[in-house]
Protein backbone atom coordinates (compact mmCIF):
# COMPACT_ATOMS: atom_id res chain seq x y z
CA UNK A 1 0.00 0.00 0.00
CA UNK A 2 1.72 3.14 -1.21
CA UNK A 3 1.21 6.58 0.26
CA UNK A 4 1.61 9.39 -2.23
CA UNK A 5 3.52 12.62 -1.67
CA UNK A 6 0.36 14.70 -1.56
CA UNK A 7 -0.96 12.59 1.32
CA UNK A 8 2.37 12.87 3.12
CA UNK A 9 2.21 16.66 2.74
CA UNK A 10 -1.39 16.78 3.95
CA UNK A 11 -0.59 14.69 7.05
CA UNK A 12 2.53 16.75 7.77
CA UNK A 13 0.40 19.88 7.60
CA UNK A 14 -2.13 18.41 10.07
CA UNK A 15 0.77 17.47 12.37
CA UNK A 16 2.40 20.92 12.07
CA UNK A 17 5.60 19.28 10.93
CA UNK A 18 7.91 20.77 8.30
CA UNK A 19 9.54 18.06 6.16
CA UNK A 20 12.63 18.01 4.02
CA UNK A 21 12.43 16.42 0.57
CA UNK A 22 14.33 13.47 1.93
CA UNK A 23 11.82 13.05 4.82
CA UNK A 24 8.95 13.22 2.35
CA UNK A 25 10.36 10.43 0.23
CA UNK A 26 11.34 8.26 3.17
CA UNK A 27 8.03 8.63 5.01
CA UNK A 28 6.00 7.87 1.88
CA UNK A 29 7.86 4.58 1.56
CA UNK A 30 8.04 3.65 5.28
CA UNK A 31 4.48 4.59 6.21
CA UNK A 32 3.27 2.58 3.24
CA UNK A 33 5.16 -0.49 4.43
CA UNK A 34 3.97 -0.14 8.04
CA UNK A 35 0.33 0.28 6.97
CA UNK A 36 0.66 -2.71 4.67
CA UNK A 37 1.89 -4.74 7.64
CA UNK A 38 -1.05 -3.48 9.72
CA UNK A 39 -3.49 -4.45 6.97
CA UNK A 40 -3.22 -8.07 8.15
CA UNK A 41 -5.78 -7.08 10.80
CA UNK A 42 -8.36 -7.11 8.00
CA UNK A 43 -8.24 -10.91 8.05
CA UNK A 44 -9.70 -11.06 11.57
CA UNK A 45 -13.47 -11.33 12.15
CA UNK A 46 -13.97 -8.06 14.02
CA UNK A 47 -17.48 -6.95 13.14
CA UNK A 48 -19.04 -8.07 16.44
CA UNK A 49 -16.08 -7.24 18.66
CA UNK A 50 -16.46 -4.07 20.73
CA UNK A 51 -13.46 -1.69 20.72
CA UNK A 52 -11.31 -1.24 23.84
CA UNK A 53 -10.07 2.31 24.25
CA UNK A 54 -8.96 1.85 27.81
CA UNK A 55 -8.42 -1.30 29.88
CA UNK A 56 -9.73 0.06 33.17
CA UNK A 57 -13.46 0.80 33.17
CA UNK A 58 -13.26 4.28 34.70
CA UNK A 59 -15.28 7.34 33.80
CA UNK A 60 -15.52 10.83 35.25
CA UNK A 61 -12.94 10.67 38.01
CA UNK A 62 -13.79 13.61 40.24
CA UNK A 63 -12.05 15.21 43.18
CA UNK A 64 -13.32 17.40 45.99
CA UNK A 65 -13.82 20.99 44.94
CA UNK A 66 -11.12 22.41 47.18
CA UNK A 67 -8.53 24.97 46.22
CA UNK A 68 -4.89 23.84 46.24
CA UNK A 69 -1.68 25.55 45.23
CA UNK A 70 -0.92 25.50 41.52
CA UNK A 71 2.54 25.64 39.98
CA UNK A 72 4.50 28.83 40.57
CA UNK A 73 3.84 31.12 37.60
CA UNK A 74 7.34 32.55 37.40
CA UNK A 75 8.92 29.11 37.57
CA UNK A 76 6.69 27.92 34.72
CA UNK A 77 7.38 30.99 32.58
CA UNK A 78 11.11 30.77 33.18
CA UNK A 79 11.05 27.35 31.49
CA UNK A 80 9.31 28.76 28.37
CA UNK A 81 11.20 29.92 25.24
CA UNK A 82 9.75 33.46 25.54
CA UNK A 83 7.51 35.27 28.00
CA UNK A 84 6.44 38.81 28.72
CA UNK A 85 4.45 40.46 31.51
CA UNK A 86 3.31 37.14 32.99
CA UNK A 87 2.28 35.57 29.67
CA UNK A 88 3.79 33.19 27.13
CA UNK A 89 4.98 35.28 24.18
CA UNK A 90 4.17 33.94 20.68
CA UNK A 91 4.36 35.29 17.11
CA UNK A 92 1.42 37.43 16.01
CA UNK A 93 -1.79 35.37 15.85
CA UNK A 94 -4.39 37.84 14.53
CA UNK A 95 -4.07 39.41 11.11
CA UNK A 96 -3.92 43.21 11.17
CA UNK A 97 -3.69 43.36 14.95
Amino acid at each position, binding site marked *: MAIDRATVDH*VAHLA*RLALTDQDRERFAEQLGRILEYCARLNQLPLADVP*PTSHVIPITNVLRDDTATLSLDRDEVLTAAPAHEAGFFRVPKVLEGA
Partner: protein
Amino acid sequence: MEPRHPSGALALRAAYAARDVRPSDVVDAALARIARLDPDLHAFLHVDGDRARAEASAWDGRFRAGAADGLPPLAGVPVAVKDNMCTRGSPTTCGSRILEGWRPPYDATVVTRLREAGAIIVGKTNLDEFAMGSSTEHSAFGPTRNPWDRTRVPGGSSGGSAAAVAAGMVPLALGSDTGGSVRLPAGFCGIVGMKPTYGRVSRYGLVAFASSLDQIGPFAFDVADCALLLRTVAGHDPRDSTSANVPVPDYAAALAQGAGGIRVGVPDEAFGPGVEPAVASAVRQALEVFTAQGVQVEQISLPTIDAALPAYYLIAPAEASSNLARYDGVQYGLRAASDDLYEMYAETRRQGFGAEVKRRIMLGTYVLSAGYYEAYYLKAQRVRTLVARDFERAFSHVDVVAMPVAPTLPFALGERAADPLQMYLSDIFTIPVNLAGLPGLALPCGFHNGLPIGMQLVGRAFEEATLLRAAHAYEQATPWHRERPPVAAAA
Protein backbone atom coordinates in the same frame (compact mmCIF):
# COMPACT_ATOMS: atom_id res chain seq x y z
CA MET B 1 40.02 2.28 43.24
CA GLU B 2 36.36 1.40 43.77
CA PRO B 3 35.69 -0.26 47.12
CA ARG B 4 33.40 -3.31 47.11
CA HIS B 5 29.96 -2.82 48.59
CA PRO B 6 26.86 -4.99 48.59
CA SER B 7 25.24 -4.67 45.18
CA GLY B 8 21.55 -4.79 46.07
CA ALA B 9 19.32 -2.23 47.78
CA LEU B 10 18.13 -4.46 50.64
CA ALA B 11 21.70 -5.56 51.32
CA LEU B 12 22.93 -1.96 51.30
CA ARG B 13 20.20 -0.86 53.68
CA ALA B 14 21.14 -3.68 56.07
CA ALA B 15 24.82 -2.74 55.84
CA TYR B 16 23.98 0.90 56.65
CA ALA B 17 21.98 -0.21 59.69
CA ALA B 18 24.86 -2.40 60.87
CA ARG B 19 27.19 0.56 60.21
CA ASP B 20 29.41 -1.61 57.99
CA VAL B 21 29.35 1.08 55.34
CA ARG B 22 28.02 4.65 55.02
CA PRO B 23 25.73 6.05 52.31
CA SER B 24 28.55 8.48 51.39
CA ASP B 25 30.92 5.61 50.66
CA VAL B 26 28.34 3.96 48.45
CA VAL B 27 27.39 7.14 46.59
CA ASP B 28 31.07 7.97 46.06
CA ALA B 29 31.64 4.49 44.67
CA ALA B 30 28.58 4.79 42.41
CA LEU B 31 29.80 8.14 41.07
CA ALA B 32 33.31 6.74 40.56
CA ARG B 33 31.91 3.81 38.63
CA ILE B 34 29.76 6.12 36.50
CA ALA B 35 32.84 8.27 35.80
CA ARG B 36 34.81 5.18 34.75
CA LEU B 37 32.20 3.33 32.68
CA ASP B 38 29.72 5.85 31.41
CA PRO B 39 31.89 7.63 28.84
CA ASP B 40 31.64 4.34 26.95
CA LEU B 41 28.25 2.89 28.00
CA HIS B 42 26.33 6.21 28.03
CA ALA B 43 23.62 5.08 30.42
CA PHE B 44 23.19 8.57 31.89
CA LEU B 45 22.14 11.87 30.32
CA HIS B 46 22.67 13.89 33.53
CA VAL B 47 24.41 13.09 36.81
CA ASP B 48 23.99 15.35 39.83
CA GLY B 49 26.99 14.33 41.92
CA ASP B 50 26.97 17.34 44.25
CA ARG B 51 23.37 16.88 45.29
CA ALA B 52 23.82 13.09 45.67
CA ARG B 53 26.87 13.59 47.90
CA ALA B 54 25.08 16.17 50.05
CA GLU B 55 22.07 13.91 50.54
CA ALA B 56 24.33 10.92 51.30
CA SER B 57 26.20 12.89 53.90
CA ALA B 58 22.91 13.80 55.62
CA TRP B 59 21.96 10.10 55.72
CA ASP B 60 25.42 9.24 57.13
CA GLY B 61 24.57 11.39 60.14
CA ARG B 62 21.17 9.83 60.67
CA PHE B 63 22.54 6.26 60.52
CA ARG B 64 25.38 7.30 62.85
CA ALA B 65 22.82 8.65 65.31
CA GLY B 66 21.35 5.14 65.52
CA ALA B 67 17.74 3.91 65.40
CA ALA B 68 18.11 2.80 61.76
CA ASP B 69 14.75 1.03 62.10
CA GLY B 70 13.04 4.40 62.11
CA LEU B 71 14.62 5.46 58.81
CA PRO B 72 12.74 4.94 55.54
CA PRO B 73 13.28 1.79 53.42
CA LEU B 74 15.56 3.31 50.75
CA ALA B 75 17.45 5.68 53.06
CA GLY B 76 20.78 6.45 51.44
CA VAL B 77 20.28 4.05 48.50
CA PRO B 78 21.36 5.47 45.11
CA VAL B 79 18.82 5.16 42.29
CA ALA B 80 18.58 6.28 38.66
CA VAL B 81 15.47 7.62 36.94
CA LYS B 82 14.66 7.50 33.23
CA ASP B 83 14.85 10.97 31.74
CA ASN B 84 11.15 11.11 30.86
CA MET B 85 10.11 11.58 34.49
CA CYS B 86 10.06 15.15 35.77
CA THR B 87 12.63 16.23 38.34
CA ARG B 88 12.02 19.76 39.57
CA GLY B 89 14.79 22.17 38.63
CA SER B 90 16.98 19.56 36.94
CA PRO B 91 17.01 18.59 33.26
CA THR B 92 14.34 16.29 31.83
CA THR B 93 14.98 15.87 28.11
CA CYS B 94 13.11 12.68 27.10
CA GLY B 95 16.19 12.07 24.93
CA SER B 96 14.95 14.84 22.62
CA ARG B 97 16.41 18.09 21.31
CA ILE B 98 12.99 19.62 21.68
CA LEU B 99 13.29 19.51 25.49
CA GLU B 100 17.02 20.17 25.72
CA GLY B 101 17.69 22.60 28.54
CA TRP B 102 14.15 22.41 29.95
CA ARG B 103 13.90 22.22 33.74
CA PRO B 104 10.49 21.05 34.98
CA PRO B 105 8.73 23.16 37.62
CA TYR B 106 7.57 20.05 39.52
CA ASP B 107 8.52 16.50 40.51
CA ALA B 108 6.80 13.40 39.13
CA THR B 109 4.89 11.52 41.85
CA VAL B 110 7.33 8.59 41.58
CA VAL B 111 10.22 11.01 42.17
CA THR B 112 8.46 12.43 45.25
CA ARG B 113 7.85 8.89 46.53
CA LEU B 114 11.49 7.91 45.96
CA ARG B 115 12.68 10.94 47.92
CA GLU B 116 10.19 10.29 50.73
CA ALA B 117 11.52 6.72 50.90
CA GLY B 118 15.05 8.13 51.37
CA ALA B 119 16.42 7.25 47.92
CA ILE B 120 19.21 9.37 46.45
CA ILE B 121 18.56 10.15 42.79
CA VAL B 122 22.06 10.22 41.27
CA GLY B 123 20.97 11.01 37.74
CA LYS B 124 18.66 10.68 34.76
CA THR B 125 19.10 7.88 32.27
CA ASN B 126 19.19 7.66 28.49
CA LEU B 127 16.22 6.52 26.41
CA ASP B 128 14.91 6.34 22.89
CA GLU B 129 13.48 9.78 22.15
CA PHE B 130 10.13 10.10 23.98
CA ALA B 131 10.46 6.38 24.82
CA MET B 132 9.83 5.42 21.18
CA GLY B 133 12.15 2.56 20.36
CA SER B 134 13.47 -0.85 21.33
CA SER B 135 17.22 -0.23 21.39
CA THR B 136 17.97 3.23 22.91
CA GLU B 137 19.58 4.08 19.55
CA HIS B 138 16.89 6.71 18.89
CA SER B 139 18.16 9.02 21.66
CA ALA B 140 19.06 12.44 20.27
CA PHE B 141 22.11 12.33 22.55
CA GLY B 142 23.60 9.07 21.25
CA PRO B 143 22.96 5.39 22.02
CA THR B 144 23.53 3.42 25.21
CA ARG B 145 25.68 0.30 24.92
CA ASN B 146 24.92 -3.10 26.46
CA PRO B 147 27.22 -3.72 29.47
CA TRP B 148 27.51 -7.39 28.46
CA ASP B 149 28.79 -6.51 24.99
CA ARG B 150 29.46 -2.93 24.03
CA THR B 151 28.81 -3.66 20.35
CA ARG B 152 25.19 -4.58 21.15
CA VAL B 153 22.11 -2.64 22.16
CA PRO B 154 20.79 -2.71 25.74
CA GLY B 155 17.19 -2.87 24.49
CA GLY B 156 14.86 0.05 24.81
CA SER B 157 13.43 2.35 25.39
CA SER B 158 14.61 2.36 29.03
CA GLY B 159 18.09 1.16 27.97
CA GLY B 160 19.94 3.67 30.14
CA SER B 161 18.21 2.55 33.33
CA ALA B 162 18.78 -1.13 32.56
CA ALA B 163 22.45 -0.61 31.64
CA ALA B 164 23.04 1.51 34.78
CA VAL B 165 21.81 -1.32 37.00
CA ALA B 166 23.46 -4.15 35.04
CA ALA B 167 26.84 -2.35 35.10
CA GLY B 168 26.58 -1.91 38.87
CA MET B 169 26.38 1.92 38.76
CA VAL B 170 23.17 1.89 40.85
CA PRO B 171 21.24 -0.95 42.51
CA LEU B 172 17.82 0.33 41.42
CA ALA B 173 16.32 2.34 38.58
CA LEU B 174 12.94 3.36 37.20
CA GLY B 175 11.86 3.00 33.60
CA SER B 176 8.61 3.34 31.70
CA ASP B 177 6.95 0.65 29.58
CA THR B 178 4.46 1.37 26.78
CA GLY B 179 5.11 -1.74 24.65
CA GLY B 180 8.01 -3.45 26.45
CA SER B 181 10.33 -0.58 27.33
CA VAL B 182 11.15 -1.92 30.82
CA ARG B 183 10.97 -5.66 30.12
CA LEU B 184 12.99 -5.72 26.88
CA PRO B 185 16.03 -3.86 28.31
CA ALA B 186 15.80 -5.92 31.53
CA GLY B 187 15.92 -9.07 29.38
CA PHE B 188 18.76 -7.79 27.17
CA CYS B 189 20.81 -6.65 30.20
CA GLY B 190 20.25 -9.73 32.40
CA ILE B 191 18.38 -8.05 35.26
CA VAL B 192 14.85 -8.00 36.69
CA GLY B 193 12.34 -5.48 35.35
CA MET B 194 8.61 -5.14 35.73
CA LYS B 195 5.73 -3.41 34.02
CA PRO B 196 3.06 -3.20 36.70
CA THR B 197 -0.68 -3.34 35.96
CA TYR B 198 -2.00 -0.29 34.11
CA GLY B 199 -3.00 2.10 36.89
CA ARG B 200 -0.77 0.60 39.59
CA VAL B 201 1.83 3.39 39.57
CA SER B 202 1.01 7.09 39.21
CA ARG B 203 2.08 8.67 35.93
CA TYR B 204 1.84 12.24 37.16
CA GLY B 205 5.04 13.80 35.86
CA LEU B 206 5.82 10.98 33.42
CA VAL B 207 6.00 12.63 30.01
CA ALA B 208 3.13 11.06 28.07
CA PHE B 209 3.74 8.84 25.03
CA ALA B 210 0.64 6.61 24.59
CA SER B 211 -1.65 7.27 27.51
CA SER B 212 -3.77 4.12 27.36
CA LEU B 213 -0.59 2.00 27.57
CA ASP B 214 2.17 3.88 29.48
CA GLN B 215 3.19 2.57 32.90
CA ILE B 216 6.24 3.18 35.14
CA GLY B 217 8.18 0.16 36.42
CA PRO B 218 11.22 -0.89 38.48
CA PHE B 219 14.62 -2.38 37.53
CA ALA B 220 16.75 -4.31 40.04
CA PHE B 221 19.34 -7.09 40.32
CA ASP B 222 16.87 -9.47 41.90
CA VAL B 223 13.20 -10.01 42.62
CA ALA B 224 13.30 -8.91 46.27
CA ASP B 225 14.78 -5.52 45.33
CA CYS B 226 12.29 -5.21 42.47
CA ALA B 227 9.46 -5.84 44.96
CA LEU B 228 10.88 -3.19 47.29
CA LEU B 229 11.04 -0.55 44.56
CA LEU B 230 7.55 -1.42 43.27
CA ARG B 231 6.14 -1.11 46.78
CA THR B 232 7.82 2.31 47.12
CA VAL B 233 6.33 3.85 43.99
CA ALA B 234 2.96 2.01 43.70
CA GLY B 235 -0.39 3.26 44.92
CA HIS B 236 -3.22 5.64 44.19
CA ASP B 237 -2.46 9.26 43.36
CA PRO B 238 -5.27 11.81 43.03
CA ARG B 239 -3.08 13.69 40.53
CA ASP B 240 -3.35 10.83 38.00
CA SER B 241 -6.98 10.04 37.26
CA THR B 242 -5.97 6.69 35.71
CA SER B 243 -4.17 5.57 38.86
CA ALA B 244 -6.17 2.80 40.49
CA ASN B 245 -7.47 3.03 44.02
CA VAL B 246 -6.44 -0.53 44.84
CA PRO B 247 -4.49 -1.43 48.01
CA VAL B 248 -0.76 -2.18 47.51
CA PRO B 249 0.12 -5.50 49.17
CA ASP B 250 3.24 -6.15 51.22
CA TYR B 251 5.25 -7.70 48.38
CA ALA B 252 8.18 -8.69 50.64
CA ALA B 253 5.81 -10.79 52.76
CA ALA B 254 4.36 -12.34 49.59
CA LEU B 255 7.83 -13.53 48.49
CA ALA B 256 8.13 -15.63 51.61
CA GLN B 257 5.06 -17.68 50.58
CA GLY B 258 6.99 -19.43 47.79
CA ALA B 259 5.49 -20.54 44.49
CA GLY B 260 3.38 -23.38 45.88
CA GLY B 261 -0.03 -23.62 44.23
CA ILE B 262 0.80 -21.29 41.33
CA ARG B 263 -0.21 -22.68 37.91
CA VAL B 264 1.90 -21.58 34.92
CA GLY B 265 0.58 -21.58 31.35
CA VAL B 266 2.88 -21.69 28.33
CA PRO B 267 1.53 -20.39 25.01
CA ASP B 268 2.58 -22.43 21.99
CA GLU B 269 2.51 -19.27 19.91
CA ALA B 270 5.51 -17.83 21.77
CA PHE B 271 7.88 -20.59 20.59
CA GLY B 272 7.33 -20.32 16.85
CA PRO B 273 9.83 -20.10 13.99
CA GLY B 274 10.69 -16.42 14.65
CA VAL B 275 12.18 -17.29 18.05
CA GLU B 276 15.92 -17.95 18.19
CA PRO B 277 16.63 -21.53 19.31
CA ALA B 278 18.88 -20.37 22.19
CA VAL B 279 16.05 -18.22 23.55
CA ALA B 280 13.38 -20.91 23.22
CA SER B 281 15.61 -23.51 24.82
CA ALA B 282 16.54 -21.28 27.81
CA VAL B 283 12.87 -20.51 28.51
CA ARG B 284 11.91 -24.19 28.14
CA GLN B 285 14.61 -25.10 30.68
CA ALA B 286 13.28 -22.45 33.04
CA LEU B 287 9.87 -24.10 32.88
CA GLU B 288 11.49 -27.38 33.92
CA VAL B 289 12.85 -25.58 36.98
CA PHE B 290 9.28 -24.58 37.82
CA THR B 291 8.08 -28.14 37.35
CA ALA B 292 10.84 -29.44 39.63
CA GLN B 293 9.59 -27.01 42.28
CA GLY B 294 6.12 -28.50 42.19
CA VAL B 295 4.66 -25.71 40.05
CA GLN B 296 2.07 -27.02 37.62
CA VAL B 297 3.08 -26.10 34.05
CA GLU B 298 0.56 -26.55 31.24
CA GLN B 299 0.12 -25.59 27.62
CA ILE B 300 -2.23 -22.75 26.75
CA SER B 301 -3.05 -20.78 23.61
CA LEU B 302 -3.03 -17.05 22.86
CA PRO B 303 -4.37 -17.20 19.30
CA THR B 304 -4.52 -13.42 18.73
CA ILE B 305 -0.99 -12.68 19.91
CA ASP B 306 0.25 -12.14 16.32
CA ALA B 307 -2.29 -9.38 15.79
CA ALA B 308 -1.13 -7.42 18.84
CA LEU B 309 1.92 -5.91 17.15
CA PRO B 310 0.11 -4.37 14.15
CA ALA B 311 -2.70 -3.15 16.45
CA TYR B 312 -0.13 -1.52 18.72
CA TYR B 313 1.52 0.27 15.80
CA LEU B 314 -1.79 1.93 15.05
CA ILE B 315 -2.87 2.70 18.64
CA ALA B 316 0.43 3.89 20.12
CA PRO B 317 1.37 6.30 17.29
CA ALA B 318 -2.21 7.66 17.23
CA GLU B 319 -2.03 8.50 20.92
CA ALA B 320 1.53 9.79 20.55
CA SER B 321 0.58 12.13 17.71
CA SER B 322 -1.98 13.69 20.03
CA ASN B 323 0.26 13.80 23.13
CA LEU B 324 3.20 15.29 21.23
CA ALA B 325 1.10 18.11 19.82
CA ARG B 326 2.05 20.03 22.98
CA TYR B 327 5.64 20.51 21.75
CA ASP B 328 4.88 23.64 19.78
CA GLY B 329 7.60 26.02 20.90
CA VAL B 330 5.31 27.92 23.29
CA GLN B 331 5.44 26.51 26.81
CA TYR B 332 8.74 24.67 27.00
CA GLY B 333 11.88 23.69 25.20
CA LEU B 334 13.00 24.60 21.74
CA ARG B 335 11.51 27.37 19.59
CA ALA B 336 12.54 28.05 16.00
CA ALA B 337 12.67 31.77 15.22
CA SER B 338 9.86 32.95 12.93
CA ASP B 339 7.35 35.81 12.75
CA ASP B 340 4.72 33.45 11.44
CA LEU B 341 2.90 31.23 13.94
CA TYR B 342 2.38 28.20 11.66
CA GLU B 343 5.96 28.32 10.47
CA MET B 344 7.21 28.61 14.06
CA TYR B 345 5.27 25.45 15.02
CA ALA B 346 6.29 23.42 11.97
CA GLU B 347 9.94 24.49 12.01
CA THR B 348 10.30 23.99 15.79
CA ARG B 349 9.00 20.45 15.41
CA ARG B 350 11.19 19.73 12.37
CA GLN B 351 14.31 20.83 14.24
CA GLY B 352 13.34 19.35 17.62
CA PHE B 353 12.12 15.83 16.81
CA GLY B 354 14.21 12.92 15.52
CA ALA B 355 13.30 10.55 12.68
CA GLU B 356 11.49 7.88 14.73
CA VAL B 357 9.34 10.42 16.57
CA LYS B 358 8.42 12.13 13.30
CA ARG B 359 7.60 8.75 11.75
CA ARG B 360 5.20 7.94 14.59
CA ILE B 361 3.62 11.39 14.60
CA MET B 362 3.02 11.04 10.85
CA LEU B 363 1.64 7.50 11.19
CA GLY B 364 -0.60 8.47 14.12
CA THR B 365 -1.88 11.60 12.42
CA TYR B 366 -2.63 9.61 9.28
CA VAL B 367 -4.63 6.87 11.02
CA LEU B 368 -6.66 9.42 12.97
CA SER B 369 -7.34 11.66 9.96
CA ALA B 370 -10.72 11.92 8.30
CA GLY B 371 -11.66 8.82 6.35
CA TYR B 372 -9.11 6.49 7.94
CA TYR B 373 -10.23 6.35 11.58
CA GLU B 374 -12.50 3.32 11.18
CA ALA B 375 -10.17 1.44 8.86
CA TYR B 376 -7.23 1.67 11.24
CA TYR B 377 -7.67 3.05 14.74
CA LEU B 378 -11.10 1.61 15.48
CA LYS B 379 -10.09 -1.74 14.01
CA ALA B 380 -6.99 -1.81 16.19
CA GLN B 381 -9.13 -1.14 19.26
CA ARG B 382 -11.32 -4.12 18.37
CA VAL B 383 -8.19 -6.27 18.10
CA ARG B 384 -7.21 -4.98 21.52
CA THR B 385 -10.39 -6.53 22.90
CA LEU B 386 -9.47 -9.89 21.33
CA VAL B 387 -5.98 -9.79 22.84
CA ALA B 388 -7.43 -9.04 26.29
CA ARG B 389 -9.92 -11.92 25.88
CA ASP B 390 -7.05 -14.32 25.01
CA PHE B 391 -5.45 -13.55 28.36
CA GLU B 392 -8.78 -13.72 30.21
CA ARG B 393 -9.34 -17.19 28.83
CA ALA B 394 -5.84 -18.25 29.86
CA PHE B 395 -6.27 -16.86 33.37
CA SER B 396 -9.43 -18.88 33.88
CA HIS B 397 -7.21 -21.91 34.44
CA VAL B 398 -3.64 -20.67 35.05
CA ASP B 399 -2.24 -17.90 37.32
CA VAL B 400 0.82 -16.94 35.30
CA VAL B 401 1.65 -17.00 31.58
CA ALA B 402 5.35 -17.64 30.83
CA MET B 403 7.08 -16.82 27.56
CA PRO B 404 10.29 -15.23 26.23
CA VAL B 405 10.77 -11.49 26.78
CA ALA B 406 12.00 -11.11 23.20
CA PRO B 407 12.37 -13.49 20.26
CA THR B 408 16.12 -12.81 19.90
CA LEU B 409 19.32 -12.17 21.81
CA PRO B 410 20.48 -8.54 22.11
CA PHE B 411 21.19 -7.39 18.55
CA ALA B 412 24.13 -5.34 17.28
CA LEU B 413 24.08 -1.55 17.34
CA GLY B 414 22.95 -0.31 13.94
CA GLU B 415 21.63 -3.72 12.85
CA ARG B 416 17.95 -2.70 12.86
CA ALA B 417 18.18 1.08 12.90
CA ALA B 418 17.38 1.45 9.22
CA ASP B 419 14.33 -0.82 9.19
CA PRO B 420 11.50 0.30 11.51
CA LEU B 421 9.47 -2.91 11.10
CA GLN B 422 12.42 -5.13 12.06
CA MET B 423 12.93 -2.98 15.16
CA TYR B 424 9.24 -3.22 16.09
CA LEU B 425 9.39 -7.04 16.02
CA SER B 426 11.59 -7.03 19.16
CA ASP B 427 8.45 -6.26 21.17
CA ILE B 428 6.22 -8.99 19.78
CA PHE B 429 5.83 -10.73 23.19
CA THR B 430 5.75 -7.65 25.39
CA ILE B 431 3.21 -5.53 23.47
CA PRO B 432 0.19 -7.83 24.04
CA VAL B 433 0.65 -7.34 27.79
CA ASN B 434 0.37 -3.53 27.48
CA LEU B 435 -2.68 -3.83 25.24
CA ALA B 436 -4.37 -5.95 27.92
CA GLY B 437 -3.14 -3.69 30.76
CA LEU B 438 -1.66 -6.64 32.68
CA PRO B 439 1.48 -6.86 34.86
CA GLY B 440 4.56 -8.43 33.25
CA LEU B 441 7.90 -9.26 34.82
CA ALA B 442 11.17 -9.97 33.01
CA LEU B 443 13.92 -11.95 34.71
CA PRO B 444 17.17 -13.56 33.57
CA CYS B 445 16.88 -17.27 32.68
CA GLY B 446 20.22 -18.06 31.05
CA PHE B 447 23.02 -16.94 28.74
CA HIS B 448 24.12 -17.74 25.21
CA ASN B 449 27.59 -16.71 24.00
CA GLY B 450 27.86 -14.39 26.99
CA LEU B 451 24.57 -12.62 26.27
CA PRO B 452 21.63 -12.68 28.69
CA ILE B 453 18.25 -14.28 27.90
CA GLY B 454 15.08 -13.11 29.63
CA MET B 455 11.89 -14.91 30.59
CA GLN B 456 8.63 -13.00 30.91
CA LEU B 457 5.90 -13.82 33.44
CA VAL B 458 2.47 -12.25 32.93
CA GLY B 459 -0.28 -12.18 35.54
CA ARG B 460 -3.84 -11.04 36.20
CA ALA B 461 -4.48 -7.35 36.76
CA PHE B 462 -3.18 -6.16 40.14
CA GLU B 463 -1.65 -9.58 40.91
CA GLU B 464 1.97 -8.43 40.75
CA ALA B 465 2.54 -10.39 43.98
CA THR B 466 1.91 -13.70 42.18
CA LEU B 467 4.53 -12.83 39.54
CA LEU B 468 7.03 -11.80 42.20
CA ARG B 469 6.44 -15.06 44.14
CA ALA B 470 6.96 -17.22 41.04
CA ALA B 471 10.03 -15.25 39.95
CA HIS B 472 11.53 -15.33 43.43
CA ALA B 473 11.09 -19.10 43.69
CA TYR B 474 12.75 -19.52 40.28
CA GLU B 475 15.59 -17.25 41.32
CA GLN B 476 16.24 -19.29 44.48
CA ALA B 477 16.86 -22.35 42.30
CA THR B 478 19.04 -20.71 39.62
CA PRO B 479 22.31 -18.71 39.49
CA TRP B 480 21.48 -16.19 36.72
CA HIS B 481 20.64 -13.17 38.88
CA ARG B 482 24.12 -13.34 40.44
CA GLU B 483 25.90 -13.03 37.08
CA ARG B 484 27.50 -9.64 36.41
CA PRO B 485 29.01 -8.35 33.18
CA PRO B 486 32.83 -8.19 33.21
CA VAL B 487 32.81 -4.36 33.14
CA ALA B 488 30.96 -4.37 36.47
CA ALA B 489 33.94 -5.86 38.28
CA ALA B 490 35.47 -3.29 40.65
CA ALA B 491 38.39 -1.45 39.04
